[in-house]
């Protein structure tokens, strides 16, 4: 079995595993308690507890590494923690004791708040404080292993918070939004997103038409799969394209950004083949600069506001745009579709379609955009409600526009797998919404009695 070296080189470009200055990262604080998007620049900072930590030390680190707050010469810094390969400190043993006699008592701690402050002043690390708390707990030793673990975790989160550096992928971005701001992505769960990409047959060199009214999560996920080939074209009805702020959070290189475009549905439908006034190259160029930038800049202000509102653990956006103008210029995703591309789409049709427009009637939308697809192309429509998709499916059947029609409802449940304590998580997301999928067919041109 031989290995093609060039693959790996190109892989390195598309799929970097080490951060760089200006790259976008997802910071997971205390195992998902708080999730932040940030752009790593020399000047960017995040607030953890009451400390403003510089993110500079994160530049050049591998994704997946963990950090702890430490006091540096010039204020608090994030210092890398190497993960041991020996499992967690605390060995989780099979529990033979039952906890019927367990008495919950939190007053058994002899260390006071002043003691802890004093330790801090003397430069004790978070880990040291946690160890002291355990040593000074009258009940810790009597607790069951399960309760000891819970206690340890709680104290560690408070006194020695961990920051995990994650790669911003469709997976992690969708999960972070779903957990903290599900309404911003129309309650689209990560398994549902994955199904949309499958049902729509998104693959390299596809030309994917999307109606993405979920702030760009669909557009970004499609672009990630295209890897700089094909096109994802976000179509819209009026003059202004729908915002795609979430696309900024992916670490898309220039190749990929070039493939993220928008076009109004009337342009895609128009019978003229020459450049229409609205697709004038000059105006187009102008659009690339001004209008998508506006999209990029304006929402960051909004998000900053929402960050203030949700101090206690919500997802936040930390983007110091002004500090890194080059980076913003790099991510100019979402330009107007090139005239040549539109021309070819008109001739050949798109190869895939995804609609995710929670406030639009599904049938009303699909009847407008489905004709833009080539025959045999796959499509997938997401909706939070079942009924609009049922009506849509019925109409597509009656109109003989598509075959292989199916409404699917995804179901996802996570499990806790621990010795003697394995069970599904007590909380689950009951609704991943619904997907209507199918394949466009050519009109019944030669209808014959069967």
């Amino acid at each position, binding site marked *: 079995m031989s290995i093609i070296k060039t693959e790996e080189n190109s892989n390195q470009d598309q799929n970097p595993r080490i951060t760089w200055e200006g790259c976008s990262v997802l910071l997971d604080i205390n195992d998902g308690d708080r999730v932040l998007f940030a752009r790593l620049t020399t000047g960017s900072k995040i607030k953890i507890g009451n400390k403003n930590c510089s993110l500079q030390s994160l530049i050049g680190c591998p994704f997946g590494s963990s950090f702890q707050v430490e006091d540096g010469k010039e204020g608090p810094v994030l210092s890398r923690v190497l993960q041991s390969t020996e499992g967690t400190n605390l060995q989780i043993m099979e529990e033979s004791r039952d906890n019927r006699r367990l008495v919950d008592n939190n007053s058994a701690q002899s260390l006071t708040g002043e003691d802890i402050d004093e330790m801090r002043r003397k430069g004790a690390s978070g880990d040291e404080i946690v160890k002291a708390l355990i040593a000074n707990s009258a009940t810790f030793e009597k607790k069951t292993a399960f309760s000891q673990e819970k206690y340890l975790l709680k104290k560690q989160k408070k006194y020695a918070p961990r920051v995990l550096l994650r790669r911003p992928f469709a997976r992690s971005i969708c999960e972070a939004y779903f957990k903290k701001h599900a309404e911003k992505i129309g309650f689209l769960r990560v398994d549902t997103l994955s199904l949309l990409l499958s049902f729509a047959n998104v693959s*390299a060199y596809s030309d994917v038409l999307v109606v993405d009214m979920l702030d760009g999560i669909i557009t970004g996920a499609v672009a990630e799969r295209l890897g700089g080939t094909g096109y994802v074209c976000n179509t819209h009805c009026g003059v202004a394209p729908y915002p795609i702020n979430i696309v900024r959070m992916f670490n898309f290189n220039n190749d990929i950004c070039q493939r993220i475009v928008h076009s109004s549905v009337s342009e895609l439908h128009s019978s003229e083949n020459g450049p229409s006034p609205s697709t004038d190259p000059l105006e187009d160029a102008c659009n690339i600069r001004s209008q998508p930038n506006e999209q990029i800049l304006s929402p960051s202000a909004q998000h900053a506001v929402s960050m203030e509102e949700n101090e206690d653990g919500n997802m936040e956006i930390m983007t110091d745009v002004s500090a890194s103008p080059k980076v913003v210029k790099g991510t100019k995703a979402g330009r107007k579709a090139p005239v040549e591309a539109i021309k070819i789409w008109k001739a050949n049709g798109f190869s895939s379609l995804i609609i995710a427009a929670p406030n639009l009637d599904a049938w009303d939308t699909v009847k407008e955009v489905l004709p833009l697809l*080539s025959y045999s192309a796959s499509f997938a429509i997401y909706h939070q409600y079942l*009924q609009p998709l049922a009506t849509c499916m019925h109409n597509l059947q009656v109109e003989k526009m598509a075959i292989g029609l199916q409404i699917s409802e995804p179901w996802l449940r996570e499990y806790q797998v621990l010795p003697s304590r394995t069970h599904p998580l007590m909380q689950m997301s009951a609704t991943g919404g619904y997907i209507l999928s199918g394949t466009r067919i050519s009109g019944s041109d030669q209808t014959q009695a069967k």
Partner: protein
Amino acid sequence: MQITSLRIDLKYLTMFPFDSAKKLSFSRCISDGDLVIVYEKHDNMKAVKVSESGILQNRFGVFKHSDWIGKPFGSKVFSNKGGFVYLLAPTAELWTLVLSHRTQILYVADISFVVMYLEIVPGCLVLESGTGSGSLTTSLARAIAPNGHVYTFDFHEQRADSARDDFERTGLSSLVTVGVRDIQGEGFPDEFLGRADSVFLDLPQPWLAIPSVSKMLKQDGVMCSFSPCIEQVQRSCETLRSDFTDIKTFEVLLHTYEVREGNLWSWQDNEGGSMSLKSCKKRQRSTNGLENASSLTIMAKRNGESRGHTGYLTFARLKCTV
């Protein structure tokens, strides 16, 4: 501006395009040598290689391949008796249905989730064992195209051979390499040490392969193990805890719905009271559904029997130790 990717190419169709020269344009017409999916019904499809002299015979009659050539994909074609089928371009999803004749129809939920959760993007190097029917492999190949590679291993030589034949047929051979190897016993080959972006295991004793997986993965790389039984999951998670972090176990299912159009009777319409449940099946159907749509109700109903379990998916991320 580079628009080479939009070029129309007339080489034979692969399941999906993975180099710009093979860019699929769906407006393209069916040619001799193409693989087409013949669609009778949602639960009745078949993969057919088109040849000038070929014929297809089914309950609708005899179809001549020569009638198909030159028609666009997505066309309805007729038999000598006037019966018809649709000719579709193959996709990973259709291929799964063709492979397994509907028994694996819901498997798409697991496949989709695995591809996304393994963070597979174009250019990735992915290891898989076992290959099985190659249903997941096809979707892995779609995700790593155009410039990544899937190395898949199966214990059974025969199974590996048929999978290799299938990838030849679907035109994916340059993206997928099939090997015969007992991954539980021997681990993955050393040539992949530290080079895999993602690894997928579908093995009876996955815990035996996990030490090898941790050697193959790049740091922060993700692995997934699929197991039907919870004991396999428990044992795998135990083994994973030493070298992996972010260990998560999921179950993914898909429920499907039927759509019906009809009116429920009002209390008064039902004066007789003797209506049997059987009559409920022959609902009145409008001749023109769309025009009468407002007066009739369209109702969606869960399909009764469904896959209650496929397996548990356990994901884990290699710890960063450097």
